[in-house]
């Protein structure tokens, strides 16, 4: 009885995921161009959030380096896809961006992942500032330019690449969570010393996961750069992209696999709607929503959903 409940639930989730995926994949057929562009932005936020959660969720290491990896992806795109003509095909550029972000994350991770708590958070944030300032210096004193223009890429192509990254990311996140690698990562978050003394190569697990999460941030940056068409270091390395993934993940709830996903989707949609409907009060309303979330939904949206669900079914599966 119990097993069949889980089995049917699994099927249910899989079916729902497929329906959403098909709905997204066919969006350009029935939706407006605006819908496609909006969905691209939402997918970008989801990718940033979920890839942040892959590492920081289980390990407990609060990374604020997201903007750095995202920005590196953006600049990779800007350099390899200038408006004067592409050096490589679009998809190759996205892969290169992911690879560069991975290498950067592994190097930085190997250096800094021995830092704990607030020190790690500050250092990773420092990375964002560092890369940005180096680029500004480079543009001022070496190339003598300010910013770069990026080749025009078809809106649908951008959307589909973003969707592709999203699908690969969700599969990766799922398998990491379910694998023994995921268990090792969780054990590090729970008690790193005990994990190390139980045979977990904690440094390697942390560095590799940090690298994997950076791949998707870099790839997402490379794609969104094609949408933005003009970028400079201030746009590409906007610190907001370090904080938003954290906020979105907490907004959605870190307890469940789908929490950050829902959080990022609603958050991004909310931001977009508020920005267009109330351009002057958008930040004010947005702030109120965030404060309300923290105060009344400490477990995020998913916490609220589970509470409601339990009440609905009369608390039968209170610990499910």
């Amino acid at each position, binding site marked *: 009885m119990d097993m069949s409940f889980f089995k049917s639930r699994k099927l249910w989730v899989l079916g729902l995921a497929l329906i959403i995926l098909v709905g997204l994949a066919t969006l350009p057929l029935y939706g407006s161009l605006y819908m496609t562009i909006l969905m691209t932005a939402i997918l970008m936020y989801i990718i940033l959030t979920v890839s942040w959660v892959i590492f920081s969720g289980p390990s407990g290491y609060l990374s604020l380096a997201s903007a750095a990896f995202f920005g590196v992806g953006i600049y990779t795109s800007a350099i390899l896809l200038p408006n004067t003509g592409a050096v490589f095909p679009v998809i190759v550029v996205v892969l290169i961006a992911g690879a560069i972000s991975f290498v950067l994350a592994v190097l930085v991770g190997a250096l800094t992942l021995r830092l704990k708590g607030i020190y790690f958070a500050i250092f990773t944030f420092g990375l964002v500032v560092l890369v940005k300032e180096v680029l500004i210096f480079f543009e001022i004193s070496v190339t003598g330019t300010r910013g770069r223009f990026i080749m025009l890429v078809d809106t649908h192509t951008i959307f589909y690449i973003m969707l592709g990254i999203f699908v690969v990311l969700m599969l990766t996140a799922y398998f990491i969570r379910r694998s*023994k690698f995921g*268990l*090792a990562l*969780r*054990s590090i978050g*729970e*008690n790193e*010393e*005990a*994990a*190390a*003394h*139980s*045979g*977990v*190569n*904690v440094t390697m697990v942390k560095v590799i996961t940090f690298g994997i999460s950076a791949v998707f941030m870099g790839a997402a940056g490379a794609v969104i750069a094609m949408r933005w068409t003009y970028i400079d270091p201030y746009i590409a390395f906007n610190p907001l992209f370090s904080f938003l993934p954290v906020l979105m993940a907490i907004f959605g709830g870190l307890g469940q696999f789908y929490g950050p996903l829902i959080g990022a989707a609603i958050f991004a949609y909310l931001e977009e709607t508020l920005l267009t409907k109330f351009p002057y009060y958008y930040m004010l309303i947005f702030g109120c929503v965030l404060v309300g979330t923290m105060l009344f939904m400490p477990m995020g949206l998913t916490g609220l959903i589970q509470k409601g669900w339990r009440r609905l079914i009369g608390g039968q599966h209170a610990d499910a």
Partner: protein
Amino acid sequence: MRMLEGEKVTKYFGGLAAVSQVDFYVEQGEIFGLIGPNGAGKTTLFNLISGAFTPKSGVIKFKGKRISGLKPYKICRMGMARTFQEVKIFGNVPAVQNVALGALFGTPKSVSTAEATKEAEELLDFVGFAVPKNIPAGGLTLVNQKRVEIARALATKADMLLLDEVMAGLTPTETAEAMELVKRIRDRGVTVFLIEHVMRAIMGVCDRIMVLHHGEKIADGTPQEISTSKKVIEVYLGE
């Protein structure tokens, strides 16, 4: 055969010698006890052996191979596991997975998740863990958390176990059970090196005992020799 050997092991914290010029050895298959007043350097010595610290000078050998300076996970995979004075478990992870982690990562060979889970369940039974195994470990009683910790250490297929005050905070009945468990662990072929404050327990289970005081070894020998040693009585009871 000597399972573990230390030669002039020394560790400083600032100017203070936490462990100073300590020589020791543990024979294969024995239960070796380490006692001493608070601050004597017992846990520091465990941290040096298990790789949490690197000795300033001196050599530690495990199964004849030098291990001082190796990372904890490497030492663990060589067959040495430990528990902690303050229980260190993965609180939000089910008890059985706490133990399975040891089986999955603590050995050089790769183990499937199903095998590791099965092994974890058997080991939890072995250590006398009698509550549902999928409860998150953080919600367990102290004695059961300690059982989980010991089972996790055993799951790494350890040949040697370092037990840091497993009996602290237990009721008399639980202490008796723990003493029994230590003997059963030895009977599985695992050499045991334990720190303990409960004198009755340590005198009852150990084959040999070493006494540390202010980081220095002041005595070693059989429980009989230790309990009649003048120096030891002085340290514990005052002159």
